[in-house]
């Protein structure tokens, strides 16, 4: 069966590399599922869970912005920050939100709020499972 060669890269280093069967990326406007022979794609990422299924296992991590490129069954995820689910820093996001509150930066505030809510949701779901 065809596989996708998947790499997750941060500015500091490549943190993940494997031949995957399926990848779900949190694009800026919703999740995108990528299977082998996917069309070439270049998309911006939002905040959310990146899911990589390979060898019957699923690797999950929270990414916060970045880009994904799909070309010739090679998937490259570029992100500033990828966090393992147990290490999600909800407190940090809360603090950031409070900092922005009332600064008149409406757009940034909304983005920070969205980020916090997503992080909370992901973390809660992880804690329950």
């Amino acid at each position: 069966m065809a596989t996708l060669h998947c790499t997750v890269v941060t500015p500091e280093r490549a943190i993940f590399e494997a031949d995957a069967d399926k990848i779900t990326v949190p694009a800026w406007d919703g999740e995108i599922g990528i299977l082998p022979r996917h069309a070439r794609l270049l998309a911006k990422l939002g905040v959310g869970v990146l899911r990589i299924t390979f060898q019957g296992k699923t690797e999950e991590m929270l990414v916060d912005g970045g880009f994904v490129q799909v070309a010739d069954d090679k998937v490259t995820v570029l992100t500033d920050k990828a966090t393992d689910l147990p290490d999600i820093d909800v407190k940090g996001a809360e603090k950031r939100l409070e900092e922005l509150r009332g600064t008149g930066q409406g757009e940034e505030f909304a983005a920070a709020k969205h980020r916090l809510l997503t992080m909370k949701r992901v973390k809660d779901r992880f804690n329950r499972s």
Partner: protein
Amino acid sequence: MAQAKVLLKRKKSVQNTKKITRTMEMVSTAKYKQSFQRIHASAPYQEKLREMMSDLASAGAEVSHPLLESRPARKSLVLVLTSNRGLCGGYNTNLNILARKLLLEERAAGTEVELHVVGKKGNSFFRARQERITAQYDHFGDQAGFAEVNELAEEFIRRYSSGEIDRVTIVYQKFVSAGRQAPAAETLLPLGGIVLDQEDAATDGPKAAKNYLYSPDPDSLMRELLPAYFKTTLYNDFLQAVVGEHLARMVAMKNATDAANKLIKSLTQLYNRARQSQITNEIAELMGGVEALK
């Protein structure tokens, strides 16, 4: 015995110094390797980003962004990357001199200059020369993380986009190869030159036209990619500077160790000679005493 004793003492002291410099040399070698690894590890991200940008450019994405706009510089910002610690030869001095030259040049051209300094060594240099340091960062240490550099980069992007500053120049130790590093002054913002180079490469390449799905549209993607590119460039400069620092210290400490070795050798010779002449003297005295008793 006095002279020989003094020589012996000096030799011991040099030997102790040598132990220290030798250890520092080894520590720097290890740190250099580590920091070099970090440059190496960070390369894929930048390469990928470049690739995406050139793909986008060849797809006809409009390349216009506040970060690319070049304006006549009324106010410019100079960022100097120095180290927190010394004992690394001319590393900091060379960087500071270059930065100072740049400051004077820009002022002569009628530009208002804001000086940002990373590292304690730059701070003391410019303070001694009564330069106004607008911002001082000592927290980067020799392990600059992306998150910290990112904060700085975002601040620059914000101020550049809002027109508060018209140019950002960085002075840092450029890493060319393990044998060659040199202080360099490069314009970070506007991004202009760097990005255009990449486009030329893209149009020449065989993969000039690729059919991509874009989300969002190419123009917006380009607007997102450019700041990311700027951030990695800045991060990369930090990494290069750190490698340069360790290499400079390594060389300085190696020279110090070599000098100590030489000194020890000549001191040993001097000591032996002094000891020998002392023994000769003593024997002569003894013989004189024996002669006198006869």
